[in-house]
């Protein structure tokens, strides 16, 4: 059984490592961040399987910490791309902002 579990972990590792291609190619930074997101949830699954496969109770705590902080990097990325680097992409009036961006020349973005 642990042979099967570690084999599944191997398969998951290879599958999820495929996401690195998107990190290299990804036209936009959001694609790269998504690849990291997929790798983190794949990592959680691998940690769980290896933890059960090796009878390592602690590995589940590691998976818990990774799951808890999975959204963390993406939030930092999203804040970085919004206005003035500290805003929220869902800031009030975001639709109005979006249309403003298309016709506004590439000037200095105003902070919300």
């Amino acid at each position, binding site marked *: 059984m*642990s*042979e099967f579990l*570690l*084999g599944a*972990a*191997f398969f998951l*590792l*290879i599958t999820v*490592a495929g996401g*690195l291609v998107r*990190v*290299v190619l*990804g*036209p*936009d*930074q959001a694609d*790269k*961040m998504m*690849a*990291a997101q997929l*790798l*983190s949830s794949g*990592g959680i699954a*691998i*940690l769980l399987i*290896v*933890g059960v*496969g*090796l009878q*390592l*109770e*602690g*590995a589940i*705590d*590691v998976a818990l*910490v*990774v799951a*808890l*902080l999975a*959204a*963390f*990097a993406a*939030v*930092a990325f*999203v*804040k*970085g*791309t919004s*206005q003035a*680097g*500290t*805003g*929220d992409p*869902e*800031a009030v009036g*975001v639709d109005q902002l979006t249309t403003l961006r298309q016709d506004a020349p*590439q000037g*200095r*973005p105003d902070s*919300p």
Partner: protein
Amino acid sequence: MTAFPLLDPALCFVILTTAVLAVAIRTVFAAVVSFIVFGLLMAIAWVRLGAVDVALTEAAIGAGLTGVLLLSTVARIAKHRADRGDDVPILEGPEPDPAPTDPLPGLATQSLAIVLSAAVAAALVAAVALLPVPAPGLVAEVGSRLSETGVESPVTAVLLAYRGYDTLLEIVVLLFALLGVWSLTADARWGGQPGLRHLARPDGVMAYLGRLLPPIGLLVGVYLFWIGGYRPGGAFQAGTVLAAVWLLAVMAGLVPIPKVSGIRLRLALVIGPAVFLAIGLAGYPLHGAFLGYPPAIAKVLIILIEAGLTISIATILGLLVAGAPEERPS
């Protein structure tokens, strides 16, 4: 020995691929993303090596705090360039490298660098191959007097009892690092709130996450703190998780970062080293030596030390990632 011999080589290969990506990839942002993935894979490697404490720390710091620190640094650099009128868009669109003006060194330097780094790696690989056969280790010594330390987890015993002196110095090093970060504040902004002012849409998804995760993070943090005594966990991992969820609440605009000059903030910073030092000095009358814990009450003393450490580590790491104050104190 291992049920599935292919997993370790594959993991090592993917780790090295991510490492090469983090160095060779074209843009800074992609390098940071690769490094976040590298940190996560390292956590899996530590679990494979059986070092669960280290895996917990690497997961919380490698995949969590370091990634956010570097991402916000890259975002702020892009913001500085935009504020200066260098017309580079803020991290958006088909993604230009925010710093196109950084030329790579000439071919001579690059080839020399390749030779040097290959030599370093080769020497270390040789060192690994030549490790002595009866692998040296202190497992027996640590185990023999574990009962006197009052904790069952050997790593926690080493951290707080056998080598308590190192951990005391380490928490002071963290404090100095924070003083270093704060001392880099522009004079006009001294005393202000560390880091940028964070705003979020009150009923948006980010605010929702900022409200939902911190309680769970607090629960996981206290859990990690408490199991430190007999299972992988402890003050460092707990402090890191608490710092991470606190930062999440700050980024969601729900929690204002207390001012640098705030007294409560400074108390939270100092409580860890202070408690540790006090218990260390109390060792003289109690057990005849600095950091000497009498076996009878060793467990209580260690838990007290860990509690202080958790609070201080959480505060220090959170403020370190938040960065130097950027707003003028109002």
